[in-house]
């Protein structure tokens, strides 16, 4: 079994995020990390401050987009970046604790602001013993 991990995938104008984990929640956590990695080197984000996020949605794909969009909202309104994620999902209810710090432009060298998680290439599925969650994000 592969350890949980994340990847980016190509989209002509923008970029795709893909999280891979042993569990659905694990895949969501990894995809969130992939999204932070679009903005900066995630090892530069110190997990100093904790915030909580909740979302509710029956459709698993849409729940995944909701999760990323909830994070985008927090990044945008709190001016923070996040590097640690603890997600639990039960019956379409997602609860997460996420850790990060305020954006430091000099240190983080943030590349782009993420506008939203799109439904392009949006899919959440199980492949053998792993969960995969992905979509393209608009930057």
């Amino acid at each position, binding site marked *: 079994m592969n350890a949980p991990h994340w990847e*980016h995938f*190509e*989209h*002509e*104008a*923008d*970029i795709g995020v893909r999280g891979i984990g042993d569990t659905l929640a694990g895949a969501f956590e990894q995809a969130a990390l992939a999204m932070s990695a*679009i*903005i*900066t080197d995630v090892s530069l984000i110190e997990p100093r401050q904790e915030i909580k996020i909740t979302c509710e949605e029956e459709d698993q794909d*849409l729940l995944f*987009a*909701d999760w990323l*969009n909830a994070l*985008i*909202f927090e990044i*945008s*309104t709190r*001016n923070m970046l996040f590097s640690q994620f603890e997600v639990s999902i039960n019956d379409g209810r997602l609860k997460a604790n996420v850790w990060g710090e305020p*954006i430091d*432009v000099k240190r983080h*060298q*943030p*590349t*782009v*602001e993420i*506008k*939203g*998680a*799109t*439904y*392009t290439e*949006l899919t959440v599925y199980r492949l053998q013993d792993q969960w995969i969650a992905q979509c*393209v994000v*608009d*930057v």
Partner: protein
Amino acid sequence: MDINKLHRISDYQWRIEAVNGMHVPGIIFASKDLILDMDEKVYEQVTNVARLPGIVNASYAMPDAHWGYGFPIGGVAAFDPEQGGVISAGGVGFDISCGVRTLHTGLTVQQVMDKQKQLADVLFKYIPAGLGSTGIFHLNKKEMNAMLNGGARWAVERGLGDAADLERIEEHGCMQGADPDQISDHAKERQKNEMGTLGSGNHYLEIQKVVEIFDAKIAKAFGIELNDIKISIHCGSRGLGHQIGTEFLKSMVLSAKEHGISLPDRELACAPIHSKLGRRYLGAMRGAINCALANREIVTHLTRQAVKQVFPDTHLDLLYDVSHNTCKLEQHEVSGETKNLFVHRKGATRAFGPGHPSLPPALREAGQPVLIGGTMGTSSYVLSGTDESMQLAYGSACHGAGRNMSRRKATRLWHGGNIMQQLADRGIMIRSPSMRGIAEEAPGAYKDVSAVVEAAAQSGLSRIVAKLEPLVCIKG
């Protein structure tokens, strides 16, 4: 794209026949080379749009079309509300009314080059750019709603812009029919500290030099002469537009079944124009258009203040302001009949021809200025709308170069510092909070804007008026 799947109408116009549930054909305006370079996804997206209810005439792709979300970027489609036509949040996109405006400066190349560094530094200081930057104007609830109803006119009334600018902005700076009540608290929350900010990604402010005039008569009407210095600003509706796009995309996906709409791609999420959700989105999206117009007006105000620090006697007059990601109610001739249509332009620009009543008197004879953004190392163009463009694609043209590679690939190929140095060697000064951002936006990551503009002209969508090259570029 596989060109064998297209029927050649002319060297610059290609048709996809209406088959497999398409209500109308697809029409792509491009040269053979541009089509060969286009992603196969553009074909898929053009045909998917042709399957939406109430589409009129054809699903169009401009010469810079590339793989977008639902609609191709560079996609144009009009829908008739009386034929069950839809409005699509995906078709407008996340960055509602993102657009470009160009300002006259009256400065000479010599004046600018003598003060190039000072100008770059003062603009970079005055214009908030990049992720995490906030504007100096913070809106309370009442002002937020006034801004969403008033657009650039609101900014002018608050002393953050010039009244003379308004007639040179689409909708005279104020989109009618906005409904701030349809915009969520989340969307407003995302915007309250972002007024007057540039954003990031492909958004920019450039000082440009006019290097070539193609049509002297129209250039004169636009106030463009060889070696003029212009300033162009590319930015959009910021967090508010992004959040509206996100929320209505989901609502439209969830309600599609109830409206009897089968979506070939979830990103094409739409609702009948005559439905409650369609009307709600229309009101919210029009508010976001006003937000973008107000934002560009405030960024212009800051630019005027910045330039005054270096050249106290200079005033910047607006040439024109165009929007790229919109859905607008317009009247067009369809088979000899005037129809009210909802025209979606996703990564495409309005390009109204001479005599159009929406143009100010000074520009009416020449046609609408169409402002095409390049990259920080290549040219931008000013085009003008033509009579023909009104017939071809509802008076629409391309909007920019379009990327030819992903951001990830660009950062593997280039380093921001090197790009900055190479451009400095060519006399172009870059300012940006992020070196990685510069690498992602490297000129080589974009298609050749000249080929795109040439195709727009050859296909009749617009006329080439002038070419501009950057001297200073502020990147978000």
